Protein backbone atom coordinates (compact mmCIF):
# COMPACT_ATOMS: atom_id res chain seq x y z
CA UNK A 1 0.00 0.00 0.00
CA UNK A 2 1.48 3.30 -1.01
CA UNK A 3 2.13 5.85 1.68
CA UNK A 4 -0.16 8.87 1.82
CA UNK A 5 2.16 10.90 4.02
CA UNK A 6 2.54 14.50 2.90
CA UNK A 7 3.58 17.81 4.39
CA UNK A 8 0.67 20.08 5.36
CA UNK A 9 1.55 22.60 2.66
CA UNK A 10 1.32 19.99 -0.04
CA UNK A 11 -1.79 18.32 1.33
CA UNK A 12 -3.67 21.63 1.46
CA UNK A 13 -2.36 22.78 -1.92
CA UNK A 14 -3.39 19.52 -3.58
CA UNK A 15 -6.67 18.82 -1.88
CA UNK A 16 -8.29 22.15 -0.95
CA UNK A 17 -9.52 24.17 -3.90
CA UNK A 18 -11.06 27.63 -4.15
CA UNK A 19 -14.83 27.36 -3.88
CA UNK A 20 -14.76 24.04 -2.03
CA UNK A 21 -16.96 23.09 0.87
CA UNK A 22 -14.48 22.37 3.63
CA UNK A 23 -15.20 20.76 7.01
CA UNK A 24 -12.53 20.98 9.69
CA UNK A 25 -14.35 18.94 12.31
CA UNK A 26 -13.71 18.17 15.96
CA UNK A 27 -16.00 19.04 18.86
CA UNK A 28 -13.79 21.18 21.12
CA UNK A 29 -11.31 18.29 20.90
CA UNK A 30 -8.86 17.76 18.00
CA UNK A 31 -9.71 20.87 16.01
CA UNK A 32 -6.98 21.16 13.43
CA UNK A 33 -6.02 24.83 13.64
CA UNK A 34 -2.82 24.15 11.73
CA UNK A 35 -4.83 23.17 8.66
CA UNK A 36 -6.92 26.31 8.98
CA UNK A 37 -3.76 28.39 9.19
CA UNK A 38 -2.32 26.71 6.10
CA UNK A 39 -5.54 27.42 4.19
CA UNK A 40 -5.21 31.07 5.22
CA UNK A 41 -1.54 31.08 4.29
CA UNK A 42 -2.31 29.74 0.83
CA UNK A 43 -5.02 32.41 0.46
CA UNK A 44 -7.76 30.02 -0.59
CA UNK A 45 -10.96 31.83 -1.56
CA UNK A 46 -14.74 31.43 -1.63
CA UNK A 47 -14.79 28.45 0.67
CA UNK A 48 -17.97 27.22 2.25
CA UNK A 49 -16.91 26.29 5.76
CA UNK A 50 -18.94 23.55 7.46
CA UNK A 51 -18.57 22.77 11.15
CA UNK A 52 -20.93 22.04 14.01
CA UNK A 53 -19.23 24.70 16.10
CA UNK A 54 -17.42 27.39 14.12
CA UNK A 55 -14.82 27.93 16.75
CA UNK A 56 -11.92 30.34 16.92
CA UNK A 57 -10.42 28.51 13.92
CA UNK A 58 -13.30 29.60 11.67
CA UNK A 59 -13.24 33.10 13.14
CA UNK A 60 -9.62 33.25 12.03
CA UNK A 61 -10.43 31.87 8.59
CA UNK A 62 -13.45 34.13 8.12
CA UNK A 63 -11.42 37.07 9.37
CA UNK A 64 -8.72 36.18 6.86
CA UNK A 65 -11.22 36.24 4.02
CA UNK A 66 -11.13 32.65 2.84
CA UNK A 67 -14.86 31.99 3.28
CA UNK A 68 -18.06 33.07 1.59
CA UNK A 69 -20.45 30.86 3.59
CA UNK A 70 -20.82 29.03 6.90
CA UNK A 71 -22.82 25.87 7.58
CA UNK A 72 -23.08 25.31 11.34
CA UNK A 73 -25.11 24.60 14.44
CA UNK A 74 -23.43 26.69 17.16
CA UNK A 75 -21.50 29.82 16.51
CA UNK A 76 -19.27 30.91 19.32
CA UNK A 77 -16.04 30.91 21.24
CA UNK A 78 -16.85 28.05 23.63
CA UNK A 79 -16.72 29.08 27.24
CA UNK A 80 -15.76 32.63 26.25
CA UNK A 81 -18.35 34.33 24.06
CA UNK A 82 -18.64 35.53 20.50
CA UNK A 83 -16.75 35.05 17.27
CA UNK A 84 -16.26 38.70 16.44
CA UNK A 85 -14.99 38.40 12.87
CA UNK A 86 -17.95 36.19 11.99
CA UNK A 87 -20.39 38.52 13.74
CA UNK A 88 -19.04 41.56 11.90
CA UNK A 89 -19.70 39.90 8.60
CA UNK A 90 -23.20 38.72 9.57
CA UNK A 91 -24.36 41.80 11.48
CA UNK A 92 -22.59 44.57 9.57
CA UNK A 93 -21.59 42.85 6.31
CA UNK A 94 -18.14 44.11 7.20
CA UNK A 95 -16.12 43.82 5.07
CA UNK A 96 -18.57 41.65 3.08
CA UNK A 97 -21.70 39.60 3.75
CA UNK A 98 -21.32 36.03 4.91
CA UNK A 99 -23.92 33.55 3.82
CA UNK A 100 -25.13 31.24 6.59
CA UNK A 101 -27.04 27.97 6.72
CA UNK A 102 -27.84 26.76 10.20
CA UNK A 103 -29.03 23.63 11.93
CA UNK A 104 -29.10 22.24 15.44
CA UNK A 105 -26.23 20.00 16.56
CA UNK A 106 -28.17 16.84 15.89
CA UNK A 107 -29.23 18.15 12.50
CA UNK A 108 -25.60 18.76 11.53
CA UNK A 109 -24.54 15.35 12.79
CA UNK A 110 -27.34 13.68 10.84
CA UNK A 111 -26.37 15.60 7.70
CA UNK A 112 -22.90 14.06 7.96
CA UNK A 113 -24.37 10.62 8.70
CA UNK A 114 -26.54 10.90 5.58
CA UNK A 115 -23.54 12.03 3.57
CA UNK A 116 -21.42 9.18 4.90
CA UNK A 117 -24.19 6.64 4.25
CA UNK A 118 -25.20 7.77 0.77
CA UNK A 119 -28.72 8.46 2.02
CA UNK A 120 -30.77 11.16 0.27
CA UNK A 121 -32.17 12.40 3.60
CA UNK A 122 -32.01 11.62 7.29
CA UNK A 123 -34.97 11.70 9.70
CA UNK A 124 -34.73 13.46 13.02
CA UNK A 125 -37.10 14.25 15.84
CA UNK A 126 -36.22 17.87 16.24
CA UNK A 127 -37.23 21.33 15.01
CA UNK A 128 -40.80 20.89 16.21
CA UNK A 129 -42.31 24.31 16.95
CA UNK A 130 -38.94 25.94 16.37
CA UNK A 131 -38.32 28.79 13.91
CA UNK A 132 -35.20 27.09 12.56
CA UNK A 133 -36.97 25.36 9.63
CA UNK A 134 -38.51 28.72 8.69
CA UNK A 135 -35.10 30.21 8.03
CA UNK A 136 -33.64 27.03 6.56
CA UNK A 137 -35.81 25.53 3.84
CA UNK A 138 -33.54 22.48 3.65
CA UNK A 139 -35.11 21.23 6.87
CA UNK A 140 -38.42 19.73 5.79
CA UNK A 141 -41.21 17.85 7.56
CA UNK A 142 -42.02 14.25 6.72
CA UNK A 143 -44.67 11.85 7.91
CA UNK A 144 -43.93 8.28 8.91
CA UNK A 145 -45.53 5.79 6.53
CA UNK A 146 -46.35 3.51 9.44
CA UNK A 147 -49.52 3.44 11.48
CA UNK A 148 -48.38 5.87 14.11
CA UNK A 149 -48.06 8.56 11.44
CA UNK A 150 -45.36 10.31 13.45
CA UNK A 151 -44.08 13.59 12.13
CA UNK A 152 -40.34 14.04 11.82
CA UNK A 153 -38.12 16.49 10.04
CA UNK A 154 -35.51 15.39 7.55
CA UNK A 155 -32.19 16.99 6.73
CA UNK A 156 -30.23 16.55 3.50
CA UNK A 157 -26.81 14.87 3.26
CA UNK A 158 -23.75 17.03 3.72
CA UNK A 159 -20.88 15.89 1.55
CA UNK A 160 -17.91 18.20 1.97
CA UNK A 161 -15.44 18.43 -0.87
CA UNK A 162 -12.75 18.14 1.78
CA UNK A 163 -12.90 17.05 5.38
CA UNK A 164 -9.89 17.68 7.59
CA UNK A 165 -9.67 15.82 10.87
CA UNK A 166 -7.01 15.50 13.47
CA UNK A 167 -6.26 12.21 15.23
CA UNK A 168 -3.81 11.20 17.90
CA UNK A 169 -2.17 8.71 15.57
CA UNK A 170 -2.39 7.05 12.18
CA UNK A 171 -0.29 4.78 10.02
CA UNK A 172 1.08 5.81 6.63
CA UNK A 173 -2.03 4.54 4.86
CA UNK A 174 -4.22 6.85 6.92
CA UNK A 175 -5.79 4.38 9.32
CA UNK A 176 -6.44 6.78 12.18
CA UNK A 177 -7.15 6.20 15.85
CA UNK A 178 -8.79 8.66 18.20
CA UNK A 179 -9.60 8.46 21.88
CA UNK A 180 -11.41 10.90 24.10
CA UNK A 181 -14.19 12.96 22.50
CA UNK A 182 -15.08 11.61 19.06
CA UNK A 183 -17.38 14.39 17.89
CA UNK A 184 -18.59 13.71 14.36
CA UNK A 185 -15.19 13.24 12.75
CA UNK A 186 -15.85 9.74 11.50
CA UNK A 187 -19.09 10.74 9.83
CA UNK A 188 -17.59 13.93 8.35
CA UNK A 189 -14.66 11.97 6.93
CA UNK A 190 -16.78 9.23 5.37
CA UNK A 191 -19.07 11.91 3.93
CA UNK A 192 -16.29 13.80 2.15
CA UNK A 193 -14.92 13.50 -1.33
CA UNK A 194 -11.36 14.10 -0.09
CA UNK A 195 -9.96 13.61 3.40
CA UNK A 196 -6.85 14.96 5.11
CA UNK A 197 -5.91 13.29 8.37
CA UNK A 198 -3.47 15.23 10.53
CA UNK A 199 -1.88 13.41 13.45
CA UNK A 200 0.22 13.95 16.51
CA UNK A 201 2.18 10.83 15.66
CA UNK A 202 2.68 8.67 12.61
CA UNK A 203 2.89 5.09 13.84
CA UNK A 204 3.67 1.75 12.36
CA UNK A 205 0.70 -0.15 10.95
CA UNK A 206 1.20 -2.79 13.63
CA UNK A 207 0.35 -0.28 16.37
CA UNK A 208 -3.00 0.27 14.67
CA UNK A 209 -3.54 -3.45 14.09
CA UNK A 210 -2.96 -4.28 17.73
CA UNK A 211 -6.19 -2.48 18.62
CA UNK A 212 -8.45 -2.39 15.54
CA UNK A 213 -11.55 -1.36 17.51
CA UNK A 214 -9.78 1.95 18.21
CA UNK A 215 -9.63 2.84 14.51
CA UNK A 216 -12.07 5.65 13.81
CA UNK A 217 -11.19 6.53 10.23
CA UNK A 218 -9.91 3.86 7.85
CA UNK A 219 -7.25 4.64 5.29
CA UNK A 220 -9.64 3.72 2.49
CA UNK A 221 -11.26 7.15 2.74
CA UNK A 222 -8.05 9.11 3.39
CA UNK A 223 -6.11 11.01 0.73
CA UNK A 224 -3.28 12.52 2.76
CA UNK A 225 -1.75 11.93 6.16
CA UNK A 226 0.10 14.84 7.73
CA UNK A 227 2.23 14.47 10.84
CA UNK A 228 2.01 17.75 12.70
CA UNK A 229 2.41 17.74 16.48
CA UNK A 230 0.44 20.40 18.39
CA UNK A 231 -1.61 21.06 15.25
CA UNK A 232 -4.75 21.49 17.35
CA UNK A 233 -3.49 24.33 19.50
CA UNK A 234 -5.31 26.17 21.12
CA UNK A 235 -7.68 23.20 20.98
CA UNK A 236 -6.39 20.00 22.57
CA UNK A 237 -5.40 16.42 21.86
CA UNK A 238 -6.49 14.07 24.64
CA UNK A 239 -3.45 12.65 26.39
CA UNK A 240 -1.05 14.90 24.45
CA UNK A 241 -1.83 18.49 25.47
CA UNK A 242 -4.49 20.53 27.19
CA UNK A 243 -6.75 23.18 25.76
CA UNK A 244 -5.03 26.57 25.88
CA UNK A 245 -7.86 28.45 27.55
CA UNK A 246 -5.78 31.57 27.83
CA UNK A 247 -5.61 31.78 24.07
CA UNK A 248 -9.37 31.33 23.70
CA UNK A 249 -9.79 34.26 26.09
CA UNK A 250 -7.12 36.29 24.32
CA UNK A 251 -8.78 35.69 20.96
CA UNK A 252 -11.84 37.57 22.17
CA UNK A 253 -9.80 40.76 22.40
CA UNK A 254 -7.80 40.08 19.24
CA UNK A 255 -10.88 39.52 17.09
CA UNK A 256 -12.87 42.48 18.37
CA UNK A 257 -10.79 44.83 16.29
CA UNK A 258 -10.15 44.07 12.60
CA UNK A 259 -6.73 45.72 12.79
CA UNK A 260 -5.61 43.58 15.73
CA UNK A 261 -6.92 40.52 14.02
CA UNK A 262 -5.03 41.43 10.86
CA UNK A 263 -1.86 41.98 12.85
CA UNK A 264 -2.31 38.63 14.55
CA UNK A 265 -2.71 36.88 11.20
CA UNK A 266 0.39 38.63 9.90
CA UNK A 267 2.44 37.62 12.88
CA UNK A 268 1.16 34.10 13.53
CA UNK A 269 0.08 32.83 10.13
CA UNK A 270 1.37 34.75 7.12
CA UNK A 271 4.57 35.60 8.93
CA UNK A 272 5.38 31.98 9.57
CA UNK A 273 6.33 29.34 7.07
CA UNK A 274 4.69 26.40 8.69
CA UNK A 275 3.17 25.03 11.84
CA UNK A 276 6.63 23.93 12.95
CA UNK A 277 7.53 27.63 13.13
CA UNK A 278 4.35 28.32 15.09
CA UNK A 279 5.31 25.61 17.57
CA UNK A 280 8.76 27.07 17.90
CA UNK A 281 7.44 30.60 18.29
CA UNK A 282 5.27 29.57 21.25
CA UNK A 283 8.28 27.98 22.82
CA UNK A 284 8.99 24.74 24.64
CA UNK A 285 7.90 26.09 27.99
CA UNK A 286 4.42 26.83 26.68
CA UNK A 287 4.00 23.30 25.40
CA UNK A 288 5.32 21.84 28.65
CA UNK A 289 2.71 23.86 30.55
CA UNK A 290 -0.06 22.21 28.53
CA UNK A 291 1.18 18.65 29.05
CA UNK A 292 -1.23 16.50 31.14
CA UNK A 293 -0.19 13.86 33.61
CA UNK A 294 -0.54 10.21 32.58
CA UNK A 295 -3.81 8.25 32.68
CA UNK A 296 -3.26 4.96 30.91
CA UNK A 297 -6.10 2.96 29.40
CA UNK A 298 -4.95 -0.51 30.35
CA UNK A 299 -4.75 -3.25 27.75
CA UNK A 300 -7.22 -5.79 26.45
CA UNK A 301 -6.40 -9.14 24.89
CA UNK A 302 -7.71 -9.83 21.36
CA UNK A 303 -6.26 -13.33 21.45
CA UNK A 304 -4.12 -14.94 18.82
CA UNK A 305 -6.11 -17.40 16.70
CA UNK A 306 -3.61 -19.19 14.45
Amino acid at each position, binding site marked *: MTSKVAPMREAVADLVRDGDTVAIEGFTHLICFAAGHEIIRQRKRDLTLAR*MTPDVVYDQMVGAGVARKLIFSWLGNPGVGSLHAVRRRIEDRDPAPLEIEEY*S*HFGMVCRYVAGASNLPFFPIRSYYESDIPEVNPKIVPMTSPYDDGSEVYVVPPLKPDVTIVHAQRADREGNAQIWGLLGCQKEAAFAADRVIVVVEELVDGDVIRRDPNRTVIPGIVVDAVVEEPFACHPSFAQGYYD*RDNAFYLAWDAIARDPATLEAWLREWVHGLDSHADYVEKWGAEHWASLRPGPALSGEVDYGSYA
Partner: protein
Amino acid sequence: MSVPSSDDGGGTRYSKNELMIAASARLLAGVENCFVGVGLPNIVCNLAQRTVAPELQLVYESGVFGARPRRLPLSIGDPTLATGSTAVTSMFELFAFYLQAGLIDVAFLGGAQIDRFGNLNTTVIGDYAQPKVRLPGSGGACEIAIHARKILVIMRQAERSFVEKLHFRTSPGHSGDPAHDRDRGWSGSGPTNVVTDLATYAFDEETGEMTLRTMHPGVGLEDVRANMAWEPRVAPDLAETPRPTADELRLLREELDPGRIYTK
Protein backbone atom coordinates in the same frame (compact mmCIF):
# COMPACT_ATOMS: atom_id res chain seq x y z
CA MET B 1 -22.39 36.26 35.75
CA SER B 2 -21.38 39.11 38.01
CA VAL B 3 -23.77 39.85 40.85
CA PRO B 4 -23.17 41.62 44.12
CA SER B 5 -22.74 39.78 47.36
CA SER B 6 -25.71 39.59 49.66
CA ASP B 7 -26.28 39.10 53.27
CA ASP B 8 -28.84 36.70 54.61
CA GLY B 9 -29.42 38.82 57.64
CA GLY B 10 -28.17 36.03 59.85
CA GLY B 11 -24.55 36.83 59.33
CA THR B 12 -23.60 34.32 56.61
CA ARG B 13 -22.74 36.16 53.45
CA TYR B 14 -23.39 34.55 50.09
CA SER B 15 -23.43 35.78 46.55
CA LYS B 16 -26.46 35.75 44.29
CA ASN B 17 -24.73 33.15 42.20
CA GLU B 18 -24.35 30.94 45.24
CA LEU B 19 -28.04 31.33 45.97
CA MET B 20 -28.98 30.50 42.37
CA ILE B 21 -26.71 27.48 42.39
CA ALA B 22 -28.09 26.16 45.66
CA ALA B 23 -31.69 26.74 44.57
CA SER B 24 -31.06 24.98 41.25
CA ALA B 25 -29.22 22.06 42.82
CA ARG B 26 -32.18 21.31 45.08
CA LEU B 27 -34.34 20.93 41.97
CA LEU B 28 -32.21 17.92 41.06
CA ALA B 29 -33.22 15.90 44.13
CA GLY B 30 -33.24 12.22 43.23
CA VAL B 31 -32.43 12.79 39.56
CA GLU B 32 -30.35 10.04 37.96
CA ASN B 33 -28.78 11.80 35.04
CA CYS B 34 -28.42 15.29 33.77
CA PHE B 35 -27.25 16.92 30.56
CA VAL B 36 -24.74 19.44 31.83
CA GLY B 37 -23.72 22.74 30.30
CA VAL B 38 -20.72 24.87 31.17
CA GLY B 39 -20.66 27.49 33.87
CA LEU B 40 -23.39 27.53 36.49
CA PRO B 41 -25.13 24.28 35.42
CA ASN B 42 -21.89 22.45 35.88
CA ILE B 43 -21.51 23.70 39.46
CA VAL B 44 -25.18 23.05 40.10
CA CYS B 45 -24.80 19.40 39.10
CA ASN B 46 -21.64 18.96 41.10
CA LEU B 47 -23.33 20.41 44.17
CA ALA B 48 -26.39 18.21 43.65
CA GLN B 49 -24.16 15.11 43.43
CA ARG B 50 -22.79 15.96 46.83
CA THR B 51 -26.14 16.79 48.41
CA VAL B 52 -29.56 15.84 47.03
CA ALA B 53 -28.68 13.55 44.10
CA PRO B 54 -25.80 11.25 45.02
CA GLU B 55 -26.49 8.93 42.05
CA LEU B 56 -26.50 11.78 39.52
CA GLN B 57 -24.62 10.91 36.36
CA LEU B 58 -23.20 13.84 34.42
CA VAL B 59 -23.83 13.66 30.67
CA TYR B 60 -22.31 16.06 28.15
CA GLU B 61 -23.50 16.61 24.60
CA SER B 62 -19.86 16.27 23.59
CA GLY B 63 -20.40 12.51 24.04
CA VAL B 64 -19.46 11.86 27.65
CA PHE B 65 -21.57 9.80 30.03
CA GLY B 66 -20.79 9.50 33.72
CA ALA B 67 -18.08 12.16 33.80
CA ARG B 68 -15.97 12.65 36.94
CA PRO B 69 -14.20 15.91 36.18
CA ARG B 70 -11.15 16.45 38.35
CA ARG B 71 -11.25 20.19 37.72
CA LEU B 72 -13.94 22.69 36.78
CA PRO B 73 -14.49 22.11 33.07
CA LEU B 74 -14.15 25.34 31.13
CA SER B 75 -16.10 23.99 28.17
CA ILE B 76 -18.41 21.05 27.60
CA GLY B 77 -15.56 19.45 25.70
CA ASP B 78 -12.89 19.82 28.37
CA PRO B 79 -10.42 16.89 28.37
CA THR B 80 -11.04 16.34 32.07
CA LEU B 81 -14.54 15.16 31.16
CA ALA B 82 -13.37 12.22 29.06
CA THR B 83 -10.64 10.94 31.36
CA GLY B 84 -12.16 8.66 33.96
CA SER B 85 -15.71 8.80 32.61
CA THR B 86 -17.92 5.76 32.18
CA ALA B 87 -18.42 6.06 28.44
CA VAL B 88 -17.32 8.31 25.61
CA THR B 89 -19.35 7.99 22.47
CA SER B 90 -19.82 9.68 19.11
CA MET B 91 -22.10 12.68 19.05
CA PHE B 92 -24.48 10.82 16.75
CA GLU B 93 -24.95 8.16 19.38
CA LEU B 94 -25.22 10.67 22.19
CA PHE B 95 -27.98 12.58 20.45
CA ALA B 96 -29.73 9.57 18.88
CA PHE B 97 -29.46 6.81 21.48
CA TYR B 98 -29.43 8.85 24.67
CA LEU B 99 -31.22 12.15 24.05
CA GLN B 100 -33.70 11.37 21.26
CA ALA B 101 -34.40 8.01 22.88
CA GLY B 102 -35.64 9.81 25.99
CA LEU B 103 -32.95 8.62 28.41
CA ILE B 104 -31.99 12.07 29.66
CA ASP B 105 -33.78 13.08 32.84
CA VAL B 106 -32.88 16.73 33.17
CA ALA B 107 -31.14 19.32 31.05
CA PHE B 108 -30.25 22.94 31.60
CA LEU B 109 -30.98 25.60 29.03
CA GLY B 110 -30.66 29.33 28.96
CA GLY B 111 -30.95 31.98 26.35
CA ALA B 112 -30.94 35.63 25.44
CA GLN B 113 -34.72 35.69 25.52
CA ILE B 114 -37.44 33.62 27.16
CA ASP B 115 -41.19 34.04 26.93
CA ARG B 116 -43.85 33.24 29.50
CA PHE B 117 -44.20 29.70 28.17
CA GLY B 118 -40.52 28.91 28.40
CA ASN B 119 -39.75 29.19 24.69
CA LEU B 120 -36.14 30.26 24.23
CA ASN B 121 -34.20 32.38 21.78
CA THR B 122 -30.47 31.76 21.36
CA THR B 123 -30.34 32.73 17.68
CA VAL B 124 -30.68 36.46 16.99
CA ILE B 125 -31.67 39.78 18.46
CA GLY B 126 -33.44 41.68 15.74
CA ASP B 127 -34.23 40.39 12.29
CA TYR B 128 -32.84 37.01 11.29
CA ALA B 129 -31.58 38.14 7.90
CA GLN B 130 -29.91 41.27 9.28
CA PRO B 131 -29.60 40.80 13.01
CA LYS B 132 -28.72 43.41 15.55
CA VAL B 133 -26.91 40.73 17.53
CA ARG B 134 -26.04 37.37 16.10
CA LEU B 135 -26.19 34.82 18.93
CA PRO B 136 -24.72 31.30 18.85
CA GLY B 137 -27.83 29.54 17.55
CA SER B 138 -29.29 26.27 18.69
CA GLY B 139 -26.37 23.99 19.32
CA GLY B 140 -28.15 21.03 20.84
CA ALA B 141 -30.76 23.19 22.56
CA CYS B 142 -33.61 22.62 20.12
CA GLU B 143 -33.56 18.84 20.49
CA ILE B 144 -32.69 19.02 24.18
CA ALA B 145 -35.82 21.10 24.76
CA ILE B 146 -37.88 18.42 23.01
CA HIS B 147 -36.40 15.27 24.50
CA ALA B 148 -34.96 15.87 27.97
CA ARG B 149 -37.66 14.84 30.43
CA LYS B 150 -37.34 18.08 32.35
CA ILE B 151 -35.75 21.38 31.42
CA LEU B 152 -34.33 23.73 34.03
CA VAL B 153 -33.66 27.26 32.85
CA ILE B 154 -31.05 29.43 34.58
CA MET B 155 -30.97 33.02 33.36
CA ARG B 156 -30.42 36.52 34.62
CA GLN B 157 -33.71 38.31 34.68
CA ALA B 158 -34.24 41.56 32.77
CA GLU B 159 -37.00 43.16 30.80
CA ARG B 160 -35.08 42.70 27.57
CA SER B 161 -34.64 38.97 28.16
CA PHE B 162 -38.00 38.04 29.75
CA VAL B 163 -39.96 39.17 26.74
CA GLU B 164 -43.52 39.22 25.52
CA LYS B 165 -42.48 37.95 22.08
CA LEU B 166 -39.24 36.25 21.12
CA HIS B 167 -37.30 37.60 18.16
CA PHE B 168 -36.67 33.99 17.20
CA ARG B 169 -37.91 30.75 18.70
CA THR B 170 -34.87 28.49 18.80
CA SER B 171 -36.09 25.94 21.33
CA PRO B 172 -39.72 25.17 21.98
CA GLY B 173 -41.24 25.41 25.44
CA HIS B 174 -44.91 25.10 26.29
CA SER B 175 -47.44 26.20 23.71
CA GLY B 176 -49.95 27.74 26.06
CA ASP B 177 -52.35 24.90 25.24
CA PRO B 178 -51.67 22.01 27.65
CA ALA B 179 -53.88 19.60 25.67
CA HIS B 180 -51.75 20.29 22.61
CA ASP B 181 -48.59 19.86 24.64
CA ARG B 182 -49.69 16.47 25.94
CA ASP B 183 -50.52 15.31 22.41
CA ARG B 184 -47.13 16.26 20.97
CA GLY B 185 -45.77 12.88 21.98
CA TRP B 186 -42.40 14.31 22.95
CA SER B 187 -40.40 12.50 25.57
CA GLY B 188 -39.75 15.83 27.24
CA SER B 189 -42.28 17.68 29.33
CA GLY B 190 -40.67 21.02 28.58
CA PRO B 191 -39.35 23.61 31.01
CA THR B 192 -40.29 22.85 34.58
CA ASN B 193 -38.40 25.53 36.48
CA VAL B 194 -36.68 28.85 35.90
CA VAL B 195 -34.09 30.17 38.32
CA THR B 196 -33.02 33.80 37.96
CA ASP B 197 -30.96 36.21 40.00
CA LEU B 198 -34.22 37.48 41.50
CA ALA B 199 -36.60 34.58 41.85
CA THR B 200 -37.59 31.03 40.96
CA TYR B 201 -40.52 30.02 38.79
CA ALA B 202 -42.40 26.87 37.94
CA PHE B 203 -44.83 26.34 35.06
CA ASP B 204 -48.53 26.14 35.66
CA GLU B 205 -49.97 22.72 34.87
CA GLU B 206 -53.20 24.17 33.52
CA THR B 207 -51.80 26.85 31.25
CA GLY B 208 -48.11 26.06 30.84
CA GLU B 209 -47.35 29.59 31.99
CA MET B 210 -44.36 30.62 34.03
CA THR B 211 -45.42 31.15 37.63
CA LEU B 212 -43.51 32.95 40.35
CA ARG B 213 -42.83 30.52 43.18
CA THR B 214 -40.15 32.09 45.35
CA MET B 215 -38.35 35.42 45.52
CA HIS B 216 -34.79 35.63 46.73
CA PRO B 217 -34.18 37.24 50.13
CA GLY B 218 -34.41 41.00 49.79
CA VAL B 219 -36.25 40.90 46.46
CA GLY B 220 -39.76 42.30 46.21
CA LEU B 221 -42.57 41.70 43.74
CA GLU B 222 -41.90 45.11 42.22
CA ASP B 223 -38.29 44.05 41.45
CA VAL B 224 -39.54 40.93 39.76
CA ARG B 225 -42.15 42.82 37.77
CA ALA B 226 -39.69 45.49 36.72
CA ASN B 227 -37.45 42.88 35.20
CA MET B 228 -39.88 41.10 32.92
CA ALA B 229 -42.03 42.24 30.05
CA TRP B 230 -45.25 40.60 31.14
CA GLU B 231 -47.33 40.55 34.27
CA PRO B 232 -46.27 37.36 36.00
CA ARG B 233 -48.64 34.77 37.34
CA VAL B 234 -47.90 34.36 41.05
CA ALA B 235 -48.21 31.13 43.02
CA PRO B 236 -50.69 31.32 45.91
CA ASP B 237 -47.99 30.01 48.23
CA LEU B 238 -45.35 32.50 47.10
CA ALA B 239 -42.39 32.14 49.46
CA GLU B 240 -38.83 33.24 49.98
CA THR B 241 -36.11 31.29 48.22
CA PRO B 242 -34.29 29.28 50.86
CA ARG B 243 -30.81 30.56 51.56
CA PRO B 244 -27.81 28.37 50.79
CA THR B 245 -26.97 26.25 53.80
CA ALA B 246 -23.60 26.39 55.49
CA ASP B 247 -22.85 22.95 54.06
CA GLU B 248 -23.71 24.04 50.53
CA LEU B 249 -21.55 27.13 50.86
CA ARG B 250 -18.65 25.10 52.19
CA LEU B 251 -18.88 22.62 49.33
CA LEU B 252 -19.04 25.43 46.79
CA ARG B 253 -16.16 27.44 48.22
CA GLU B 254 -13.82 24.73 49.36
CA GLU B 255 -14.39 21.90 46.89
CA LEU B 256 -16.23 22.92 43.79
CA ASP B 257 -15.05 26.41 42.92
CA PRO B 258 -12.18 27.38 45.17
CA GLY B 259 -11.07 29.90 42.54
CA ARG B 260 -14.54 31.53 42.79
CA ILE B 261 -14.90 31.57 39.03
CA TYR B 262 -18.62 30.94 39.03
CA THR B 263 -19.69 31.64 42.58
CA LYS B 264 -18.32 35.10 43.18
